[in-house]
C-alpha cells in the first residue's frame, strides 16, 4: 500500500504488494473507531506541529519594525519578496550557492548510499561468503556509535588532504552508511526469493548481472524509501558541515548558521532565509509525505 507510487510493473513486485493487501484491509476493518476526544487531541497536536511553519511565513513577510510590536502580528504581511531578496543577497549567508551546493551534496550522497547500500545489502542478505556474519555484525554494532565522536580526526584528515571548504569533505563521510546497508539487507531478505537468485545462477548469469537484472527491480521500492530518508538527512546535516565548510562554499545549513549567527540583526530577513533553505525539502515532503511516513513505519517494524 505504501509502496504503490514506486511500483514499476515487475511481476515479483506485484506479488509482494498483493500478498500484503488483504491482511491490511481486514485488520483495518476491525480497528476501533475514534471518538471525539481523539480528534480534539489530534487537531491540537497538528496545530502545535504546524504553527512554527506558519509563523515563519508571518515573520518572513513582515518588516522587522512590524515584528517588534505588542501584540505581535498573527497574519502574514506584504514584505515577503523584499525579505527574500535581502536574504538572498546577504553575503555572509551566500544562499544561492548554498542551495546549489546542497542539491549536489544531497543528490550525490543519496545516490551513493542507495547504490552501495543495495549492493552490500544484497551480498549480506543472499550471498554466502566467509566472514559474512562477522562483517554484518560489525556493521550493526557501529550503528549505535554516534559519528560526531569522530569529527576531530576527520577534520585533520580533511585539512591534510586540503579538502576543507570543498564539497567532497561533506560528501565522502556520508556517501555510504551502515544504516543504508542494514536497511537494504532487511528489505532484501524478505522481498527477494532465494529461488530467483538461484535461477539466475543456473542460467549462467554473473553475480553482477544477477544484481542488476534481478535484485535491482525487486529492491526498487525499498531503495526509494531509503533515498527519501537519506536525502532528508543529508540536506539537514548540521554539525560536520559547519566544521568542514565556510560561507565561501556553504551548504544550506552552513548558510543558516551564518545567517543566524549574529551578523544579521534583522529577524525578518533571517526568517526569509530560513524559509528559502527549508522550502525545497518541504515541497518534496508535501509530495512524498505519505511515502516517507510509510517508509519510517516499515523501517521500524523491521528494525
Amino acid at each position, binding site marked *: 500500500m505504501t509502496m504503490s507510487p514506486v511500483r514499476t510493473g515487475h511481476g515479483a513486485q506485484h506479488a509482494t504488494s498483493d500478498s500484503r493487501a488483504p491482511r491490511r484491509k481486514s485488520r483495518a476493518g476491525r480497528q476501533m473507531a475514534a471518538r471525539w476526544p481523539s480528534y480534539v487531541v489530534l487537531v491540537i497536536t497538528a496545530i502545535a506541529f504546524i504553527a512554527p511553519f506558519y509563523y515563519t511565513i508571518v515573520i518572513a513577510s513582515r518588516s522587522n519594525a512590524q515584528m517588534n510590536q505588542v501584540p505581535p502580528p498573527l497574519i502574514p504581511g506584504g514584505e515577503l519578496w523584499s525579505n527574500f531578496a535581502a536574504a538572498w543577497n546577504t553575503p555572509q549567508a551566500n544562499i544561492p550557492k548554498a542551495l546549489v551546493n546542497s542539491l549536489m551534496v544531497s543528490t550525490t550522497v543519496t545516490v551513493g548510499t542507495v547504490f552501495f547500500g543495495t549492493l552490500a545489502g544484497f*551480498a549480506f542478505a543472499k550471498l554466502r561468503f566467509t566472514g559474512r556474519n562477522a562483517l554484518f555484525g560489525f556493521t550493526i554494532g557501529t550503528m549505535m556509535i554516534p559519528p560526531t565522536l569522530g569529527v576531530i580526526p576527520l577534520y585533520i584528515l580533511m585539512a591534510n588532504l586540503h579538502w576543507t571548504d570543498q564539497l567532497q569533505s561533506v560528501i565522502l563521510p556520508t556517501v555510504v552508511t551502515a544504516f543504508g546497508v542494514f536497511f537494504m539487507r532487511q528489505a532484501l531478505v524478505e522481498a527477494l526469493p532465494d529461488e*530467483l537468485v538461484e535461477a539466475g545462477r543456473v542460467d549462467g548469469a554473473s553475480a553482477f548481472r544477477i544484481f542488476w537484472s534481478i535484485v535491482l527491480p525487486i529492491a526498487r521500492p525499498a531503495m526509494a524509501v531509503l533515498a527519501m530518508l537519506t536525502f532528508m538527512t543529508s540536506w539537514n546535516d548540521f554539525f560536520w558541515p559547519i566544521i568542514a565548510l565556510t560561507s565561501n562554499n556553504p551548504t544550506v545549513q552552513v548558510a543558516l548558521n551564518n545567517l543566524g549567527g549574529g551578523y544579521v540583526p534583522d529577524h525578518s530577513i533571517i526568517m526569509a532565509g530560513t524559509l528559502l533553505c527549508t522550502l525545497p525539502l518541504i515541497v518534496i515532503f508535501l509530495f512524498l509525505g505519505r511515502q516517507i511516513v510509510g517508509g519510517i513505519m516499515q523501517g521500524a517494524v523491521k528494525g
Partner: protein
Amino acid sequence: MTTSSSTHRLAPPPPPGRPAASARPERSAWRQRLSRWDTKASPYAFVSPFLLLFLGFGIFPLIYTAYMSLYNYRLGGTKTWAGLGNFTWLFQDQFFWNALKNTVTLGIISTVPQLLIALGLAHVLNYQLRARNFYRVTMLMPYATSVAAATLVFSQLFGRDYGLINWMLGLVGVDHIDWQNGSWSGQVAIAIIVTWRWTGYNALIYLAGMQSISQDLYEAAAIDGASRWRQFTNVTLPGLRPTILFTIVVSTIGATQLFGEPYLFSGGGQQAYNGGASHQYQTLSLYMYQQGWQYLQLGRAAAVAWATLLLVVVFVVLNLTIARMRDRTPKIPATAAVEEVAR
C-alpha cells in the same frame, strides 16, 4: 520472472547433470572456473565499496580519536605526548562538569515528555480515523525540518520582548520570561524544540509497533470487559516493549549529541560557543566544539569525545537495566488472563 526469462535468452543453461558443450571442452572449463571465481569473489566486491569508505571515514576517525586524546594536539600546531593529561585537565575544569550536568538534565527533560506524548499520540492514531494520512504527515513535518531552521524559528517564538510565547503567557498573567538568558528557562526552551522535532517521529514508530500487535488480543480483552485504558496498559504496552526500548536507546543517544539547538538558540558569537551567556545550556558536544575549534585544543576535544562515548554507554546500559527490572515486576492478573485467552 520476466527478468529471469530474459537472462535465459542471453545465456542458455547447460543441460543438467551432463557437462555442457562437449564439442568445446576447454572453453567450458574456462567458463566454469570463471563462474566459480565470480561466485567466490563477487560478494567481497559488493561489500568492499561500503566497507572501505566506512572504515576510512567512519571507523578510523573514531579510533584515532582515542589516540589523539593522549596528545597535546593543537590545531595547525604542535603535537606532544600528554598521557592522561587531557583527561585530568578535563576532570578539573568546572565547565566540563557543567556541560555534563546540562547534557544529563537536557536529555531527561527533552526525552521523557517526548516519548510519553509520542506514546499517547500513537494510541490515538491507531484508531480508525478520518483523514488519518493528514495527521501522520503533519506529525512528521517537524522531523523533516533541519535543526538550524527549527531553532531559528523557535528563537523568535521565545523572544523576550516581542516573542509570541511570552505574549501568550502574558495573556494568562505570566511575566515575560528571558528564555535565552535564563538558566532553567533556556533549558526548557531547548527541550521544547527537541520535543517538537522528534515527537511525531517517535509516535509513528510506536504506531508501527502497535499495528503489529494482534487484534485478537484486543478482542479478547474487550470480551472480558476491559476498558480502553486497560486495553492500553495491559495489551498495548506489553506488546510495544521492544519498540519502546528501541526508541529509548535512540533518543538517549540523540540526547547526548545535542549541539545545533543550544548553539543557535544562544544567538551567536561567544555565547554560541559558551552555550548561553553563563554556559547555562552548554552541552558536551558544544563543549567539545569549543575546545576544538575556538581554543584549537584538539587533544582536549578528543578527550571530551571519549567522555561522551562513555556517557552514551552508561546511559544505554542504565536504561536497559531499568527496563529489564520493570519486566520482573509481577503482572496484573488481567494481563495474564488476556494472554491466556489469546493463546
